């Protein structure tokens, strides 16, 4: 039994079958990579996990409970955090506030009328948030407005916002896109370090260097279906995968 079990998930947009009988089983504590060409349905699949989209048919079971029919905030409170393909951050707020907010959400739940204490004097929360910013290398910019960051920094900030929640399952949609080689390597190191904390991860990546440095298992998606699944070294040589990637230029 995996921590996440996806069975027969279908999703179509009008005439387009974006997901076609997707099956996926993610082991607890593993790093599961999903690769596949553009438009394969990878982001759509994650959308079905976090409640942005509802699958037409199929089941999604996380930690023994269904993720279907509950709201995005309930899914997060159940322990699922997500980094989006286009960063979703609080652009008008400071970096520190961006990380403090998820820290509060994890500690105090989906709603608390905590209207009298000062947010910046909640030392427990603040220290946790500052520590997290240090981990992703953004502590010097903690008072800057998040919207002014570069694309790569926004990604790292979003990663910090997810990690500070200490989720059971972390979904990463191309977490290193738009980053320099050096920043990519930093992010890989960071993800490896937090891997030791036992957070299960699903990571979507086009950068094979990232995939092969992190993943224990790889699923290949094409045209809405998982066409191959296995250990990274097996996937590398799989002819169907080479085919899906048009002659294997990426591999």
């Amino acid at each position, binding site marked *: 039994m995996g921590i996440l079990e996806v069975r027969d998930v279908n999703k179509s947009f009008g005439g387009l079958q974006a997901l076609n009988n997707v099956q996926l089983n993610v082991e607890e504590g593993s790093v599961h990579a999903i690769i596949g060409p553009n438009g394969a349905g990878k982001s759509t699949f994650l959308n079905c996990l976090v409640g942005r989209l509802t699958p037409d048919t199929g089941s999604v079971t996380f930690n023994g409970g269904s993720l279907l029919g509950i709201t995005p*905030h309930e899914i997060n409170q159940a322990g699922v955090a997500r980094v989006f393909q286009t960063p*979703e951050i*609080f652009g008008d*707020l400071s970096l520190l506030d961006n990380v403090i907010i998820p820290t509060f959400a994890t500690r105090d739940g989906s709603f608390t*009328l905590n209207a009298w204490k000062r947010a910046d004097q909640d030392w427990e929360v603040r220290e946790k948030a500052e520590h997290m910013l240090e981990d992703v290398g953004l502590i010097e910019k903690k008072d800057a407005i998040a919207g002014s960051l570069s694309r790569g920094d926004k990604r790292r900030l979003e990663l910090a*916002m997810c990690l500070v929640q200490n989720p059971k399952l972390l979904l990463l949609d191309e977490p290193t896109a738009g980053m320099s080689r050096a920043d990519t390597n930093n992010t890989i190191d960071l993800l490896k370090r937090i891997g030791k904390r036992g957070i299960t991860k699903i990571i979507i990546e086009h950068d094979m260097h990232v995939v092969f440095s992190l993943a224990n298992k790889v699923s290949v998606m094409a045209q809405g279906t998982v066409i191959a699944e296995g250990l990274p070294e097996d996937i590398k040589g799989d002819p169907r995968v080479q085919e899906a990637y048009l002659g294997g230029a990426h591999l």
Partner: protein
Amino acid sequence: MITATPRNDLLLMVFFAIAILTMPIWLSPIGAAYPDLLQRFAIYGIFAIGFNLLFGLTGYLSFGHAAFLGVGSYTAVWSFKLLSMSVVPAVLFGVITSGLFAVVIGYISLRRSGIYFSILTLAFAQMSYNLAYSVLTPITNGETGLQLAQEDPRVFDNLFGTAMESGSGIPPTNLFGLEMSGYSGFYFCAVLMIIGFYISMRITRSPFGMMLKAVKSNQNRMSYTGLNTRPYTLAAFVISGMYAGLAGSLLAVTDPLAGAERMQWTASGEVVLMTILGGVGTLMGPVIGAGVIKYFENIFSAFNDDALHEIFSFLPDVLQDGVVAVVGLFVGEGWHLTLGALFVIVVVFLPGGIMEGIGRLSRVFSQKKTIEPTVKTRAQPGE
């Protein structure tokens, strides 16, 4: 930008309280230091502070806040009629009743955001306005407005014999025997405004306030971060409605009657103007905006053609008539034209309102002293 440390907030609070309580002194050179106008500064200041808690923090623009102002007034007058001329129950019930109205209106309106939310709140306020004129006449006394009468029951006053005697007429509104007219009325409103300002500062700095800013910034991110945006926006809406109810009940405290026109869309629009003029999302802005608008309303609406002829009497007759005709459009009944022009100027040139103007000026002055790169100067977005 001054950082919001607890120490700076305390200083701001002390400065604010002193500035408000000494208004009768420092406003006298500009002829604004009489109780009736000062009361209006304080009351509309409260209205705008509350409005800003919703609009400034969450970005939800309500176009129907006057409904809560009206509900507060009607409730307060009923409290005077039925219970007592004491302002304590009047203000308490005014706040509670408008809070309950805000729960209902907010619950429905907040199902939509952006322009649809604004239209829904506007619709509710116009409905309240029309109901007050029609089917609710037994409660609102329709067009005449709700007034006190000699034969009102005033149960508590009669029970405890606490009625203040004022000859044979209707007894005055009072706070434990202190008559709420003139300067005592102003100080009562002023103290409540200072408390209201303090509460809004606490809310703004709190985790709850931070969540409201998150609502404005990115609701998607909020949901995927495990936060339920609905109760946050509803709580902000209700708190803001209660501020409006407080302001409405204070209008009745200083002048015990209530009419439906208090709920009209122009009154809702006015508080939007006050907040934007002063500076959306800033603590002081709404208070300043309310003060400026009420002050100019007072000055400009007082002019009539005779007064204008007097002012321009130095001009030759032909010219004088022309000038008076043009200027006359902007004063008296037409003062809203001045207000509109003022508003356009502020929104175009100072989208952050008067507070942004103050910020720019103080930066100019501080840069003259210390040539320092200001990395972190970012004006509050006007939204």
